[in-house]
């Protein structure tokens, strides 16, 4: 049995760690509240822009637009694919970062091409991929803390530029979407090129005439698509940030609970050890006194 001093040191160290996890829990729960409000404010836009864009694409006349060019002439092995990956700046968020990284690696396996490039948001993911020797864009340096529309616009502009200059043939966005307070899910969202919905996929309730595009379909698409992409990136940043805070909150709550349990067990052990020491001392004193009495 460990000595009572050892147990006491152990209790002390657990109490210190618990103070930290508890503080982190409080911090992330207050950040989470802010992020959730932000998310609620952004959700109409995020979903609205996706819905409307989808509806427009479904009713758009056939058009030749660069954003819809699937670049079929480029073979699977030759395609240059860019992934925008959203991770956290720090660890200690349960499986949040690992799920994102796992999804990226799965994507790498599925596609035949070797010409992948990563655009990583968040320090954690950047360090991970750098250490493992993946090609990442080092100039792509943005934080994931408190997302802003401006940052999303800058990112979208850069990605659209890479696409238009044929440096990338496909762009995907990998982020974590919050489903409810206990559940989140990593998503892979294709950004470019956009798919035009064919009429065969269309459900029956959407039968209607083609909309008129002002001034013309091409210029409307040219103004909608970059906007749509920055909107989607912004929405994804907000979703990911909220999921991160949520994951950290849950992880820290579990850590604090575990620490409490350990403290309970250790304090029982400590009391036993102390009791045993006292008992032994008493026995020693008593037996010592006995021998002394006998000698008399």
């Amino acid at each position, binding site marked *: 049995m460990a000595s009572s001093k050892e147990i006491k040191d152990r209790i002390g160290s657990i109490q210190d760690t618990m103070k930290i996890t508890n503080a982190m829990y409080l911090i992330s729960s207050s950040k989470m509240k802010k992020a959730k409000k932000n998310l609620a*404010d*952004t959700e*109409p*836009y995020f979903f*609205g*822009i996706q819905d*409307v864009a989808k*509806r*427009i694409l479904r009713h758009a006349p056939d058009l030749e637009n660069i954003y819809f060019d699937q670049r079929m002439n480029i073979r699977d092995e030759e395609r240059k694919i860019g992934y925008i990956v959203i991770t956290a700046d720090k660890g200690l968020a349960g499986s949040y970062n690992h799920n994102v990284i796992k999804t990226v690696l799965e994507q790498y396996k599925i596609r035949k091409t070797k010409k992948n490039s990563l655009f990583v948001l968040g320090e954690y993911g950047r360090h991970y991929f750098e250490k493992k020797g993946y090609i990442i864009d080092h100039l792509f340096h943005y934080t994931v803390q408190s997302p802003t*529309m401006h940052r999303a*616009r800058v990112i979208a*502009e850069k990605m659209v*530029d890479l696409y238009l200059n044929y440096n990338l043939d496909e762009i995907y966005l990998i982020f974590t979407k919050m489903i409810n307070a206990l559940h989140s899910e990593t998503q892979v969202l294709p950004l470019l090129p956009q798919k035009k919905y064919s009429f065969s996929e269309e459900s029956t309730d959407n039968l*209607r*005439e083609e*909309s*008129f*595009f*002002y*001034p013309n379909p091409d*210029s*409307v698409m*040219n*103004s*909608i698509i970059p*906007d749509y992409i*920055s*909107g989607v990136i*912004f929405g994804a940043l907000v979703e990911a940030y909220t999921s991160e805070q949520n994951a950290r909150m849950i992880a820290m709550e579990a850590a604090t609970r575990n620490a409490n349990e350990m403290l309970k067990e250790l304090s029982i052990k400590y009391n036993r050890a102390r009791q045993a020491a006292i008992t032994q001392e008493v026995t020693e004193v008593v037996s010592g006194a006995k021998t002394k009495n006998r000698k008399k």
Partner: protein
Amino acid sequence: MISFSLKVIASDKVFFDGKCDILIVPAIDGEMTVMANHENMVIALDTGEIRIMKEDETWIHAVIGIGFAEIEDNITTIIVDTAEYPEEIDVKRALAAKERAEEQLRQKMSTQQYKHSKASLARAMSRLRITKNL
């Protein structure tokens, strides 16, 4: 007057949701007016002033950023990155942004930077115009 439903969604809030009689939006080549029973249409929007006449004939003036408007069966949805009331605009900030953009436009720069400065100048100008500071 016949009214129609209008929803203006900005990236950080739902700016307007309700009935209106007349809607005037800044299209790429000038302003366009939408009234009830308008043809189904998708319009690309530029930075500028948007005017909404509600059913009680009062007008709402606001500044919007780039985006688009979709008119479908008397339901109009406008999706823009920003939408602000004149009262919400920080005149000093807009003035500073205007000066900064003009300063940058005077210097040599890449096409992308040029586009940026042009866009921020347009944003600042429309903000100032609606607050009658230009």
